[in-house]
């Protein structure tokens, strides 16, 4: 497995990727659009893009992922895709009848420069229906950028400040996370008695129940009315700087809603920070149940700290997720010696800092020396591990090649997870998500210890 990867690290000057740790913008935009109630995502480009994105999302969620495409041929690429998009808009509304059609571009349509807003303006959009769009060139950023851009699109098309005084409600932008994470964030807010609008919200859409009937538009998703009302909220909480802060900043500019940008609430510190913001925003004490959960989490952490302490771990994936996971494993006493994201990690929006600086700062505070890279690939990551082996890898499914090549356990976290099921139904955020992460990490380490133990060292109680 990966026998062609040498240990010796040579500088690569090409700027290409070998075994990338990111993918392209449109898939993120498609996923975000699924988080609007009764929305059909539409891919404006060749049909292969739409096919690839539906395939990948379906494999991750194991649920229907519906989306249409402009189905470009060579002619459309030469003469522009206006005619294709107009035809698509007409057909989509008459055949699939969504409330919202969310168009995202591809590298093809970006390169030929299709002007999406003016095409939409000249298209036949039925009364009461909306077509929104986001520019998602694949040659910038990553799938996280695409997600962020579509969420921004939701703000620019829908958000309105219609009330003279902001309402006692907050906007929660959950970022590129699983529906279970969105559910968990909502559960915590419900326990706080907080009023909120979460957008996008893919819970109920890509984790819909089996009823024996297919629904093109399942129950879930943020409604158009809610999206409009985001402009009246008193605060936007952007969870995950890379996936969520752009939309929150735009909402601040457009509707004067202040912003709190936080880490994705993975692990105890980030969850504490999230709940403190909710506590302040609503002047409400932390719900007793959440305090109980936190106490349970700390109990488990202290009970099991010796499983983790000093263990070396390599973490890769999307910046927001990796940031949260790194902070959590540090709080367990582990040493994240290799931390990598494939997405470019510079400051975006109005937020300060960068991925590399953030992670380095965390490592320094914990006294851990580690490799940190944004915009890296799994080839680099693998070479790092060859040069400094680790006890555990945390990342998405693509890490399994390295895990096998180097005989290191892999805990699957993030997107995409293509070779395991149930993950999208189980949160990694909040105190309960932290407990689950803790269970996964300790099981991986202890299973490994059991597997490698000599008969005389194989123990019943650990």
């Amino acid at each position, binding site marked *: 497995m990966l*026998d*062609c990867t*040498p240990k010796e690290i*040579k500088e690569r*000057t*090409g*700027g*290409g*990727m*070998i075994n*990338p740790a990111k*993918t*392209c913008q449109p*898939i993120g935009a498609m996923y975000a659009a699924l988080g609007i109630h009764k929305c059909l995502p539409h891919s404006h*480009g*060749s*049909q*292969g*893009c739409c*096919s*690839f*994105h*539906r*395939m990948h999302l*379906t*494999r991750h969620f194991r*649920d*229907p992922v*519906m989306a*249409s*495409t*402009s*189905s*470009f*041929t*060579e*002619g*459309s*690429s030469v003469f522009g895709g206006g005619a*294709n998009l107009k*035809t*698509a*808009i*007409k*057909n989509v509304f*008459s*055949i*699939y009848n969504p409330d919202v059609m969310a168009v995202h571009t*591809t*590298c*093809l349509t970006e*390169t030929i420069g299709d002007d999406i807003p003016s095409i939409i303006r000249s298209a036949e959009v039925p009364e009461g229906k909306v077509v929104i769009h986001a520019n998602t*060139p*694949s*040659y910038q950023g990553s799938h996280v950028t695409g997600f962020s851009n579509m969420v921004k699109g939701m703000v620019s098309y829908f958000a309105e400040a219609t009330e003279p005084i902001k309402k006692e409600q907050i906007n929660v932008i959950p970022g590129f996370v699983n529906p279970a994470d969105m559910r968990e964030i909502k559960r915590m807010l419900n326990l706080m008695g907080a009023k909120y609008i979460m957008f996008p919200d893919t819970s109920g859409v890509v984790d819909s129940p089996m*009823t*024996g*009937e*297919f629904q093109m538009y399942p129950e879930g998703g943020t409604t158009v009315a809610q999206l409009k009302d985001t402009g009246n909220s008193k605060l936007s909480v952007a969870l995950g700087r890379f996936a969520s802060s752009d939309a929150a900043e735009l909402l601040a500019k457009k509707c004067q809603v202040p912003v709190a940008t936080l880490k994705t609430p993975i692990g105890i510190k980030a969850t504490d920070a999230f709940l403190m913001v909710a506590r302040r925003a609503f002047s409400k004490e932390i719900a007793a149940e959440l305090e109980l959960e936190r106490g349970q989490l700390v109990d488990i952490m202290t009970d099991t700290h010796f499983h983790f302490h000093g263990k070396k771990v390599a973490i890769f994936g999307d910046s927001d997720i990796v940031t949260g996971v790194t902070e959590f494993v540090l709080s367990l006493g582990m040493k994240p010696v290799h931390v990598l994201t494939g997405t470019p990690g510079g400051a975006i929006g109005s937020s300060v800092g960068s991925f590399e600086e953030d992670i380095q700062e965390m490592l320094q505070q914990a006294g851990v020396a580690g490799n940190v890279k944004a915009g890296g690939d799994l080839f680099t990551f693998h070479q790092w591990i060859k040069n400094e082996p680790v006890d555990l890898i945390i990342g998405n499914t693509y890490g399994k*090649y390295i895990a096998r090549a180097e005989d290191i356990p892999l805990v699957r976290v993030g997107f995409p997870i293509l070779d395991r099921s149930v993950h999208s139904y189980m949160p990694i955020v909040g105190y309960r998500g932290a407990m689950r992460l803790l269970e996964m990490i300790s099981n991986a380490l202890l299973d490994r210890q059991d597997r490698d133990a000599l008969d005389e060292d194989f123990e019943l109680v650990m």
Partner: protein
Amino acid sequence: MAMTEKQLEEILAQYPSKVQKNRKKHVLVRNESADPQIIEANTRTIPGIITNRGCAYAGCKGVVVGPLKDMVHITHGPVGCAYYTWGTRRNKAKSEDPSKNFINYCFTTDMQESDIVFGGEKKLTKVIDDVMAIFKPNAISISATCPVGLIGDDLGAVAKKAEEKYGIQVLSFNCEGYKGVSQSAGHHIANNGLMEHVIGKGELEEAPAKFAINLLGEYNIGGDGWEVERILKEIGYHIVTVMTGDGKYEDLRNAHIAELNLVQCHRSINYIAEMLEIKYGTPWIKVNFVGVQSTIDTLRNIAEYFGDAALTQRTEEVIAKELARIESKLDQYKKLCEGKTAFCFVGGSRGHHFQGLFKELGIDTVLAGYEFAHRDDYEGRQVIPDIKLDADTKNIPDLHVEKDPERFKIKLSPERYEELKKKIPLGQYRGMNVEMKDGTVIVDDLNHFETEEFIKILKPDILASGIKDKYVIQKMGLPSKQLHSYDYSGPYAGFNGAVKFAEDITMSFSSPTWNFITPPWKDEPLLVGTVTEEEGVA
């Protein structure tokens, strides 16, 4: 259950008029007495229609070139296309030399905005330099994605310079996603490239063993190719190359030495088989290793072609041995499948191939179709001269080959060729339609709307399709079997494959999981009233 023309019209009538007019030509209710029935295929997908089709890049890099294991395949473009074709089609491959097996790697130039503005050739050149410095593969391929064609990067020139610099072959494919109307265009571009630049470039003049064959259009999904190879080798064939599942660039170069080409997926490779016949004099036969009877027929046809008594005897021995081994296993599954019906909609030839295997289990296919076929895959090769080329097809460069002055060899006398043609599918494919029963439905490029509508009317017990509609179908309470990736099971080809398929299909029907869809409280009222008889009443 059969379908009537009237039912079909009612479904199509729900479309806007232009869509209706278009789709009407792509759907048939099979009528044997009206044979031949014309179906439209390989035309543009209607914008806005939820289709299962992919693009030319998916066909070129994803299907045909990607499985060649001893090459580094570079996707020139932004990151996504390379990412989605990274190990996702289950083209299994193993290598004697693991340091020359790149099947688990993914290479991309990861073009950024500045590359789109200023051109990506320099970056591509540098990435090739990096690849050569680190990996030293036997050859390199470059596949173009959409924006590359638009900005006009000259892949051919970059490849040529790299060839001169490194002394290995660097193949470039202009397989931008927008070319053609489906992935079929990409197969064509890839195959033509391999035909033009790789096949016949090897040193061998003659096969090192008797009964040398190539297996064309077999992609070793889930190990299918390995099961086929197992059987063929046991009979005594020498397999020169498999194109392209578990394929090797080095073997492919010697494809010209084979005595016969076997064509498994007619759609993706029939034109290459024809070119090999023109250039090297190697005839081809259409084979089908899916299903027990199809496998037996195919093995007998190949033996017939070689006309060698010992080979024929060995063929019968292997068939008898394999049958004895699997028949009782299959019987237990048949009992649970008997009388059921299926939809069989897959990409190229599987939409046809799997019907035989379904039938052997007692399952009738009531609807079938292909995602990216051309008319000949439905109607048979005799329609090829009648197929009108449209602008989209014309955009795919056509390759014309001639007799190779040194390596052309007549493998069959013209008389023997004609004689054999009457007995075996030598240079022929009769298409899917002739084998489908009256009242069954044939759909080209089946889309989401039609899938739902046809299920409502035909009420099949199982659907064989791909990942994008798998969960749509299952949400309706019906089992769905992926025939692109086999739901990560397989192999399904050959004798062992038939047993595995039977096991998997039976599992879909007999799994207790389907029994839980309706919760018990939906069948029972909350308050159970009792009727008490009052004395004196009635």
